[in-house]
């Protein structure tokens, strides 16, 4: 403990910036008001680099790297807005939209969905790959909440918040590749879960309409996330 904090200086989009050595490109970009799009990332949860929206170019590195899990290094030259990146980001969104049944107009979170607004922000006006139209279940067995797999983008925010913050680990991921799906307990009905505390954190961190609360009009289905950074901050202070 109490080692001196090392500061790294680097360039993001030709701007000189600096950050602690344990900080990521995404954190430094945000501190400096540089926009990098994200979906799976959520402040307060462990970053996992799953959605690939935050891919950035780094001079001298042939691969694109996810900004949310890449630490800053001395002399790095990062580019966040090249045409290639924008093309890939739109492609990522198109694949997410094509993979399941995202019908915005009849979705319970129409108007406050991160996937929907990201498509607008990144200028994705249509999906150029064929839609898959899979047949997926909706589990409404829980007293208060519903999971609609048609809208899930497998960001695993629910899995992480349940494990890291609530400590229940009711959620996890089952299957591989295109067959992956979030599950409660050992793929049991959510309503019969013995570990779920019904805290609702998963519902509030879900970026889409995959997790929602029953009996609320669409206009009141705003997700409340303020609790997250606050809880993590309290925890770190106690340590």
């Amino acid at each position: 403990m109490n080692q001196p904090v090392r500061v790294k200086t680097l360039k993001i989009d030709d701007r000189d910036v600096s950050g602690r050595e344990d900080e990521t490109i995404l954190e430094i970009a945000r501190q400096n008001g540089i926009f990098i799009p994200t979906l799976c990332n959520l402040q307060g949860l462990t970053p996992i680099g799953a959605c690939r929206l935050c891919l950035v170019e780094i001079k001298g590195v042939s691969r694109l790297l996810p900004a949310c899990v890449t630490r800053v290094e001395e002399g790095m030259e990062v580019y966040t807005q090249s045409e290639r990146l924008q093309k890939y980001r739109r492609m990522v969104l198109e694949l997410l939209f094509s993979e399941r049944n995202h019908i915005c107009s009849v979705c319970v979170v129409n108007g406050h969905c991160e996937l929907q607004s990201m498509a607008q922000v990144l200028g994705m006006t249509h999906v150029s790959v064929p839609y898959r139209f899979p047949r997926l279940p909706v589990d409404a067995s829980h007293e208060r909440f519903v999971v609609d797999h048609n809208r899930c983008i497998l960001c695993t925010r629910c899995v992480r918040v349940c494990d890291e913050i609530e400590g229940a680990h009711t959620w996890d991921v089952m299957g591989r590749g295109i067959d992956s799906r979030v599950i409660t307990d050992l793929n049991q009905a959510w309503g019969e879960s013995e570990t779920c505390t019904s805290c609702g954190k998963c519902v509030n961190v879900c970026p889409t309409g995959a997790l929602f609360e029953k009996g609320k009009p669409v206009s009141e289905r705003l997700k409340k996330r303020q609790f997250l950074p606050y809880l993590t901050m309290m925890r770190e202070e106690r340590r």
Partner: protein
Amino acid sequence: MSKKRIATVWLDGCSGCHMSFLDMDERLVELFQQADLVYSPLVDLKEFPEGVDITLVEGAVSSEEDLHKIQMVRERTKILVSFGDCAVTGNVPSMRNPFGVNAVLQRAYLENVTLHPQVPREVVPALIEKARPVHEVVKVDVFIPGCPPSAQTIFLVLSDLLADRMPDMAMLTRFGA
């Protein structure tokens, strides 16, 4: 300069996009000083004409008739515009896709019907296997998401297209808007 020729067609949609089109109100007058509406469900013309400059397509491609119509419209149109979420994404008409045509017809015409349950097979066009967005069937030049796109969005997009500019959709509308 001769007036541009605009058309609109209605495939598998609820006509909400056309309602939004009418919602342009007095701006329609302004618009049609620069263009003529040469074919539309809103005007009484039976044949889709040749040499159309801009066609707005509402609705997904869901039936044999839609398929036939959209191919003909594409051939006769310079700039084909996917007009609203059904045309752009499949939207509500595509919600039948995970279940298949037979299950949907069963549900609609047999299971929920008490008087003469029967699946219509004459006059109405046969459904194709999946309701598809227009660009999966023919080439589309401009996409206007929205359910429906607002009158202001339609007006700005058409104004741009009539002035030979490409509209910036991200500023105007989004899926489900």
